[in-house]
Each structure stands twice: as C-alpha cells, then as structure tokens.
C-alpha cells in the first residue's frame, strides 16, 4: 500500500511540475526574442529609461490622440515648431514662418538638414502630404486646426504655403506645434491612413526612432545619428527605453530604486516631498498652459445671472485651496488666460476676493432669500460635476461646497468616473463644471473653443451664446498684427472676468523627477502633456560624467 501512496505522490509532483513548465513555457517561449538587438548598452548610462503609464495605442502619429503615445511619437516624427519653457513657439523643422496675402497665406520656411532615418531628406512635400492626409481622413485633433486651409503648396523643397479661407492669427503656431510630419515615401503606400497602424519598420526624423515595441512592457528607441538640433549633430544618449508603470506610485518607487531615470508623468504635489531625502533625485519645476477652473452652465436659470456667477466666484477660497490641496505649489489667477502667456494675460484684472458675506449680500440684492432660516438661499441648489479620478479637483469641490455654504449657496458634489463626466459635459448635463484644461498652446484657440457660439466643436462648457463675445473673438482671430492682437485678447479677458463666465482656480506647477546622478540637460516644457519628454529635450540630455 505504501508503494501505491508513493507512486501517487510522485504522479502529483510530476503533474505539478508539468503544469508549471507548460505555464512557464507559454510565456517563456517568446521571452525577449524580439529584443535581441536592444539589450546592448542597457546596463550603462547610455540608455535613458523613462517611466510611462500606458501602452502606445498606435504608431500612426497623424491618428494618435494619447498623451503617452506622443512622448514616443514626438521623438520620432518632427514638428514644424516646438514650445519653449516660456510657452513661446520656437523653431524645430521650420526655421521661421511668415504671413502673406493679408494673413490669408501662412508660409513655413524649413531647415534643409533634417533627414529621415532611411537617408532621404525631410522636404516640403512631406509637410504637404502630412497636412493633406489629416484633412482627407479627418485624423486626430489637428484636423480642426486645418479647417481654414483651402489648399497647400510646396513650391520648393524648403517652403510650404498654406492658403487659408480667412486670416486666423494663431494658425501657423497651432499647426506648426501640433502636426507631426511623416515621411511621404513611406506613408503614401499605406492607403487609408485612418486604418494604418504603422507598427513596424519605423522611419523617423526625430532624435530617436523606435527599434522594438513589447506591448505591456517596454519601447526601445535608438539614436538618430543625424539630428541637427542635438549638440554635436547627434543625441548624447544612445538609446531611450520607455518602461510601463500604470500606477504613478509604482513609478515613483521605480525611480527611487534605479529602475528608471525619468518619470514621464509629473510627481503629485503631495508626493514630491518623498524625494526630499534622496540625493540622486532632482525635481524640475515648470508652469502650466492649462489651469483649474469652475465653469457655469448658462442654460441654468440661476447661473444665467451675472450676480450669481459673481457671488459664486466670491465664495471660492482659492488661496486656501492652493495652500491645502496643492501645498502652495500653484499660482492664483484672475482672468481666463494662464499667466504663462505673459503677452496676453491681463494683469489689470484682480481675482474676485473670497468674501462669503459679500456674496450673500449680492445674492440677497439679486432677489434670493432664506425664508426657512436654514442659512441657505431657497431654491439655489446647484450641482458641481467633476472627474473623480482627479484627486486635486475632487478635493477642490469639497472645499468649494464648504465655503459656498457660508455664502448661503447649497452645492451638491457630482464627481463621477472620468468617461461619465466627459460624457455629461459633452451633453451639457451639469450646473457647474470643475475641471482642468489640458493644453492650449495659444490663448486664441482657448477662447474660440470655450466661448465662441458658432464653434462647432470645442469645449464651450458655459454653453454661451453671446453675439458680443462672438464679435470680440472673431475680430481678434483675424488680427495678424501682434500688438493689436494682444490688446484684443486682453479685452476679452476683461469681459470674461466681469461676466464671471468662469472662476479660475489655480495654475498648477508641475514637477518632473529624474535621476540627476545619471543624466542631465533636460529641457522642461510648460505642460504635463510634454513635460521633459519632448524631442528637443531628449536630444539635449547627456549622461553625467
């Protein structure tokens, strides 16, 4: 009997071992096979490892809309312009741009030393092809920026002319900054570019080009040895490797452990101090293009009244929000333009003071009363919608509710899951929207998107239909003289502030963490969209020592 028992035990052991082997084999059979050439130099400082949060959705830069995709794709595909630390447009593939024909023709003059990694030069026809493909297949968000284009001309290898149906002051800046330039000789054979994944044999002209992609794990990029914007004509770093950490806390641990050298995403303000005692880790602080705000739905009968919107603006304690939610790491703002756009920010405007008693008096004067004596105005019950995954905004809503109650205004927290929130905002199903703009690279695009009633898309969360605002915006949009343009933008700032269409809350300072004992030379951009992971920044990075 004991022999039988032993035999069964042995069979169990064999079965378990076989199961484990099969399981291991299932995964193991493909282990690192596709990276045979990418392991070189990975142990040294020649490889810059960056933490990213999600996989690349697709490798077609004309189609992709994801922030983390853009970190990788922007390093491969050049743009006409880039944004510098002060939110000004700087040359990249284009040396400069000019307007002709009274602002109806935007002309880009290209550098002649950009080369695709297969050896062909980057020429005006590539730019023309990229823009025409976007227009034809309505690809990505750039398609909206090309709305004014009637035709595109490439008279020579370094000149591209965009003919517009009407002058639009920030056209060149917007298209120049956002549009990726793809190699015509590679992409033109792909047919319908809305269905082209571009997932192998990459040809780029940025400082790095993808070498291998292991979904769910990492993306390895190799240096482009002919990148003219890198000191010495080629990036100092041999390879860039993006590693995936879906959770920002895990990514912070990975940076501290030395698994990565740079966090692509900003470090949350509340967590930044955890790096204080780590001598290797440095934090680079940058301002932001976007800002947090409260926007009032004009279709609500109460919020349609200027006094109510002004009273709500007076019921928000922004100073307290900045000190408690963001540990002081943000700027207060008054108008609808981020102060980083120094040329357009109207500094004569002052924020509404935090004054619950004043807000109460304003509402009483507007006819609101508290007959039941509960301290809240009767019938003034408003919901505040927000994306609950944004911890800062959720906390802001909580503080806003408390401070508004002191002004006699009852607010209900309606923070929900992100997609639900976006769906509701798209459909206008909210009273007050508490959110944070992503990236507007210029104030005009922001004002058009947020206040122009005829703007077919955009993010007009006020659902504003004001002929006066339409007139002001359209007038400014057609003004190509820089000084006159700035004056008109500042005037719109003033009108928005007086009307209290929105209550600006703060401009967050973003902090990007990197291992300063291994790499230096990062150039930060004022946005969490780009941060320190831009083509220009990656081309400037060099190993320490």
């Amino acid at each position, binding site marked *: 009997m004991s022999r039988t028992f032993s035999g069964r035990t042995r069979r169990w052991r064999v079965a378990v071992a076989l199961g484990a082997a099969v399981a291991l084999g299932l*995964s193991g059979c493909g282990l690192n096979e596709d990276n045979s050439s990418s392991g070189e130099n990975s142990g040294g400082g020649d490889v810059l490892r960056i933490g990213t949060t999600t996989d690349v959705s697709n490798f077609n830069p004309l189609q992709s809309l994801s922030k983390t995709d853009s970190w990788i794709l922007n390093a491969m595909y050049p743009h006409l312009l880039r944004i510098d630390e002060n939110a000004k447009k700087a040359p990249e593939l284009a040396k400069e741009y000019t307007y002709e024909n009274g602002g109806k023709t935007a002309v880009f003059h290209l550098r002649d030393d950009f080369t695709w990694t297969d050896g062909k030069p980057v020429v005006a026809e590539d730019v023309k092809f990229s823009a025409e493909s976007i227009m034809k297949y309505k690809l990505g968000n750039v*398609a909206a920026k090309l709305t004014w284009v009637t035709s595109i001309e490439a008279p020579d290898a370094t000149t591209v002319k965009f003919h517009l149906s009407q002058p639009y002051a920030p056209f060149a800046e917007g298209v120049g900054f956002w549009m990726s330039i793809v190699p015509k000789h590679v992409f033109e054979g792909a047919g319908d570019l809305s269905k082209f994944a571009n997932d192998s044999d990459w040809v780029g002209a940025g400082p790095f080009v993808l070498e291998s992609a292991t979904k769910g794990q990492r993306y390895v990029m190799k240096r482009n040895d002919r990148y003219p914007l890198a000191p010495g004509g080629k990036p100092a770093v041999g390879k860039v490797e993006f*590693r995936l950490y879906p959770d920002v806390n895990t990514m912070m641990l990975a940076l501290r452990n030395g698994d990565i050298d740079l966090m692509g995403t900003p470090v949350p303000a509340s967590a930044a101090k955890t790096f204080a005692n780590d001598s290797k880790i440095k934090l680079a602080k940058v301002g932001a293009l976007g800002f947090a705000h409260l926007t009032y739905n004009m279709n609500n009968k109460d919020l349609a009244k200027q006094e109510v919107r002004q009273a709500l603006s007076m019921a928000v304690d922004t100073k307290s929000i900045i000190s408690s939610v963001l540990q002081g790491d943000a700027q207060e703002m008054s108008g609808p333009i981020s102060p980083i756009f120094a040329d357009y920010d109207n500094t004569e405007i002052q924020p509404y003071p935090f004054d619950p008693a004043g807000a109460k008096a304003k509402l009483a004067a507007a006819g609101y009363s508290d007959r039941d004596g509960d301290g809240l105005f009767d019938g003034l019950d408003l919901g505040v919608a927000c994306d609950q995954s944004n911890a800062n905004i959720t906390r802001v809503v909580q503080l806003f509710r408390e401070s508004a109650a002191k002004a006699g205004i009852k607010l209900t927290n309606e923070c929900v899951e992100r997609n639900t929130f976006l769906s509701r905002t798209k459909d206008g199903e909210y009273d007050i929207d508490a959110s944070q703009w992503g990236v507007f690279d210029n104030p005009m695009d922001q004002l058009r998107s947020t206040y122009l009633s005829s703007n077919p898309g955009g993010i007009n969360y006020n659902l504003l239909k004001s002929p006066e605002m339409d007139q002001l915006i359209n007038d400014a949009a057609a003004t190509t003289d820089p000084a006159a343009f700035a004056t008109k933008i500042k005037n719109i700032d003033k009108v928005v502030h007086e009307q209290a269409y929105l209550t600006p809350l703060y401009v967050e300072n973003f902090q990007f963490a990197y291992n300063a004992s291994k790499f230096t030379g990062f150039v930060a951009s004022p946005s969490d969209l780009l941060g320190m992971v831009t083509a220009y920044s990656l081309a400037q990075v060099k190993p320490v020592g």
Partner: protein
Amino acid sequence: MARFMLNRALKAVLTVWIAITATFFLLRLLPGDPTTLMVEGDMTPEMRAALLETYGLDRPLLEQYVSYLRELLHGNFGISFRQIQPVTDILLDRLPWTLLLAGVAFLLTIAVGIPIGVSAAAHRGRWPDKLLQGFGIAGHALFVPSVAMLLLVWLGARLGWFPIGGAIDPDTRGLAAYLSLAHHLVLPVASLVLVQLGPYALTLRTNLIDVLGEDYIRAARARGLSGRRRLWKHGLRNAILPALTLMGLQLGTLVGGAVLTETVFAYPGVGRLIFEAVGQRDYPVLQGAFIMLAITVVVANALTDLLYAVLNPRIRL
C-alpha cells in the same frame, strides 16, 4: 457519461453566448463612447461622426450586435479602435502572461492549501487549526490590490528583494530569462495566493472534519488503519470533492484578481489590457478580453464538473 458531457458542453456554450451578449450591450450602456475622451480637444461634430463611422458605431445597436456575432462565428474578434490591430493578435500577445500568473497562483494555492487544511483538521481546536481559522477569515477580508501594494512597498521597494514592476528583465536571455521571469512572478503570485489560500484551506478543513466523523472512517479505525492513512487516504479523498468545486470557482476569482494584480505590478497580461481598454472605451478589445475570460472560467468549471463526475459517479445519475 457522454450524455453528461454533452449536457455540460451545451450549458457552457449557452453561458458563453450570454456573456458575449451581456458584454456587448453593457459596454454600450456605459456613458460615453470612444470619442468621449477626445472631447477636450477641438473635435468638430464632423470629425466625431467620421470616427463613429470608422468604428461602425453609427449603425443601429442590433445591427452592430448581429454583425459582431457573425464575425465571431468566423473567429474574428474585430479590430481595436485605438491600436488599429486585430483583437485576436492583441489578446494572444497578452494571454500567456495572465495564464502564467493565474496558473502558478492556482497550483500554489492547491499545493500549499491541502497540507494546511489537512493539518488544521488533524489538529482540530489546537494552535495550527486556530492559526488557519484566523488566516482564513483574514483571507476573506483582504483585498488583492491592498495586499499587492503592501508587498510591493515592503518587499519590493523598501527591502529591494523583488522587482517592483514588469514581467521579466528585458536584457536577459536563456536560463537567466527564466530566472528573471520567476523572480518577477514572486510578488504578484504571492498577493493572489495570500488572498486565496486561507478560504481554500478553511473549506478543505471543514470538509475533512465532517468526513472524519463518518462511519466508514470509524470503521477504518476499528480495522486498525493508522491515523495518517485514515486522514490522507480515506479522509482527504472524500473531503477534496467539495473543495474541487471551490477550486473551479476560485479560478474565476484568480483571473479577476489577476486584473488588479497586473495593474499594481505593471504585469503585461490581459488584466492590464482591460484596465487600459476601459479607459479608452475600446469596445472590441474589451469584448474580446471578456469573452476570453468567460471561456476560461466556463471551461475551468466544466472541467471541474467533469473531474467531479469522474471521481464521484453518483452525480452522473
């Protein structure tokens, strides 16, 4: 037996069809669509309409459903909205990692759970039993991501014993790659096993105590069989039958747990794919992943039933 198997197979097919249908309609009942996430940009209604047409989401729901079922019958899971690649390719790329993680955790739960459960039953009322009961109750209360994060912070980040993310060191080859694979598996597997082990061993212990009180065990004792043989041969053999059902159910829980574990440990399996696809409303990927998980659970349960029937002929009656 053939009739029994046919019956089980039909039920399995019906279950998978219900899962397919429920997944299809539930996803579309969620607020937002794949274009929702683009609302913050300058997306015109024309662009949105073009995208919906590209995705086939402009057609009536029933038409989409029939078309989807037709494609499924041809083995086509569709094309990912965001990755512009066949869903089958995307899933097959991720599936081995999830099978590895859930499979190892499953086997380990059984391998460790059986001796613990048996030991607790054999020492009923004494300290091994009390320890297991505490552990089992804790297992019910533990939440996979909390355990995972705790292990990650302490054993991964603070002590540096294990990697804190990924599935393998990308620069390893051959045997080193397998060792790296195992090294990366420790914490994700441990977080799953810690949560599953207690309840499993506790169920086994309870079953075993019941069985040990049966007449035939007393008869075996009267025949002079040793305690060890009564416990392991006669007791466990009968007590393990109900535990088999639990094991089948646990596989489903393990797969669900793997979704959370994979996210915490940046493990490149189907779970993390689902996490990302939910955020992007990538319906084809989500549908494909849920169908695959449903099939996994249904097949596991069918196999459990089959095994149960083989071991206990009475249920075939």
